[in-house]
């Protein structure tokens, strides 16, 4: 029972789907951020796996950059979150609809 690329890809997809569920059902902004992390990580697995099975380092490098981006996203996002929370007293998505078209 050799573990092939497809196993990893399926796993990645599965995690991605879980992330999507989170993204869609969470109304609390902080918990939404969790879900986006799951999305990023699921993709990371896929990258790493492809990189491994095709002997190409590019995938790993992308994982590296993705992690960097995720880190900065968290930093900035949390900062904004705090500001928002200070102003409105909550971080509920349903209250953030000032951009109604």
């Amino acid at each position, binding site marked *: 029972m050799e573990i092939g690329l497809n196993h990893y890809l399926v796993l990645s997809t599965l995690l991605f789907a879980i992330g999507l569920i989170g993204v869609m059902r*969470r*109304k609390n902004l902080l918990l939404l951020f969790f879900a986006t992390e799951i999305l990023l990580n699921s993709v990371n697995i896929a990258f790493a796996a492809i990189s491994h099975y095709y002997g190409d380092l590019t995938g790993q490098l992308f994982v590296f950059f993705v992690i960097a981006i995720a880190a900065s996203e968290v930093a900035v996002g949390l900062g904004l979150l705090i500001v928002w929370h200070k102003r409105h007293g909550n971080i509920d998505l*349903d209250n953030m609809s*000032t951009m109604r078209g």
Partner: protein
Amino acid sequence: MELYLYLALFSPLAGSLFAGLFGASPRTKIAGLVPSLLLFVSFVSSTILLVYILSGGAKVHVEMMTWMATGDLYIPFGFVVDQVSVTMMMVVSLVSTVVHFYSIGYMDHDKGFNRFFSYLSAFVFSMMILVMSDNFAGLFIGWEGVGLCSWLLIGFWYHKESATWAANEAFIMNRIADLGMLIGIFLIYWNTGSLQYDQAFAAMNGLDKEVLTWMGIFLFIGAMGKSAQFPLHTWLADAMEGPTPVSALIHAATMVTAGVYLVVRANPLYDLIPHVGLFIASLGAFVALFAASMALVNRDMKRIIAYSTLSQLGYMFVAAGLGAYWVALFHLMAHAFFKALLFLGAGNVMHAMHDELDPFKMGGLRKVMKGTFVMMTLASVALAGIYPFAGFFSKDLILEVGFVEHHYIIYTVLLFTAGLTAFYSFRLVALIFHGEERYKLFGIHPHEAYKFMLVAMSPLLLLAIIAGSFKMTYFEMVTAVLPATEYHVHSAITYWIMTIGTQLFVILAIAFAYKKYANNKVKVPDGTSKMENRLCYKVLSNQYYIPYIYEEYLAKPYKELSTLFWKQIDMKVVDATVDGIAGIIYSSGEKTRVMQSGNLSTMLKWMVAGTIGLLSLAVVFGLAARYSGEIKTILSGLGV
């Protein structure tokens, strides 16, 4: 000779421009005098050219400059003076000179005196172009130019609703015919490759009969409009709204004969298609009778003369249609003289009667207006065709043509019409000049026109009397370019019987007219007499209801259809479709705007939905690419 050609052609233009300079300034005699003198110059030049041609000179042909040249098309401003055009030039320049001098008196008190002369000279210039051009396009310039001047002059008193209406009617009706003419020109160009008369006619011999027939028909449609042949005749009677000198010049002597000139000019074409010629002749005979019948009962002096003109044009077309081009041209010339004279006389009467046109309200004017009386009577005699006046020679000749060519129906119609002509002419003369002085009832004090107006008319009088004697000279000259067919009845007895019979018939008609209208019992009709209530009288006095039919069944529906097109189709269908498309786009935006609720959660859901959409596309295209071969076989199996 070229100098005289240019002089004859351009001095009217100079006169027109000169008078035009004074267009906005108050009335000055000089604005009338200078154009008249310039026209005299034109007349003298024409005479010199005539003498030159008569003395056996070759035709004068000049090409002034290129007008249009593109592709194979080459149209110059070319002018030719040959036997035909010099005849027309003489008629045009002579009558117009007379009319110009006459108008100085006639328009004496009119506010638009300067303007009038500008228009009138412009008309003469257009007419000169028309007759002198050496190609069809140049002819068309003149053709439209005279139409324009006719529009300007009929609507000269533009404050009158009826005048402007008549002007527009004339222009539009002429335009209908001009379309035919234009199509004829196109046909000629594409089939012969040239619009120059000589080249085009030379090329016509080798053409298909059918094409030639169409050419002949379309050109004749053009001629029908200008010469007011049925069914485009209604404008001519309405055109009498213009000043009387205009009627004399344009609507009797020159412009309306342009159609005849065209047919004569295109004689090589019509010679090839005698069946079209026969149609022209039949139509001419019909119009002759038709117009004469309307003249019988009309109560408008100028309209009577207009119908008479129409009738005489019918005669000319009979001659032209039957191939007797020189006869047609001859009658054209003679007719121009006496008809212009008649109109100018009528102008004098109008002046005297303060623009009253109903001859029933006149009567007995011979005592006050001796000169006019004599002139109008002689002109009517000429019109009726009594020996030895001009009308006898030309009109009798047309009757002979009909007889010799064995078209007896045409001959009979024309003979009958000749009687009618005599009757209505003298009905008019009798009503105006004889009998009781009915005008007194209306408190009018008539007076004779200025002396110089009568003097100005005298050349026409002279020619109306003696023009017939030029017949043989004219015949010799003009047959250099036109088919020289002599029309003689074979046996001398028949000839004499015919001639004398015709004369007697005409004299009888005159006598009848005098008897009926020259007595003192004539009353101003008030619509109660028995005759006026007869059906045929009503039909005739309403001009066979043709203007009514045109108004009700053409003009009004056109107006209504136009409004319908605008209000219903353009606004409610075409534009509404465009606005509808815009509306659909707009409302779809309005509806989908709900998607942008501003709620991040909802938007994330849409995002996922969009991702799924894209992924499905990827799957579909991937599968399609993978299985393209199979898909192709399936599709080909389905016959796609």
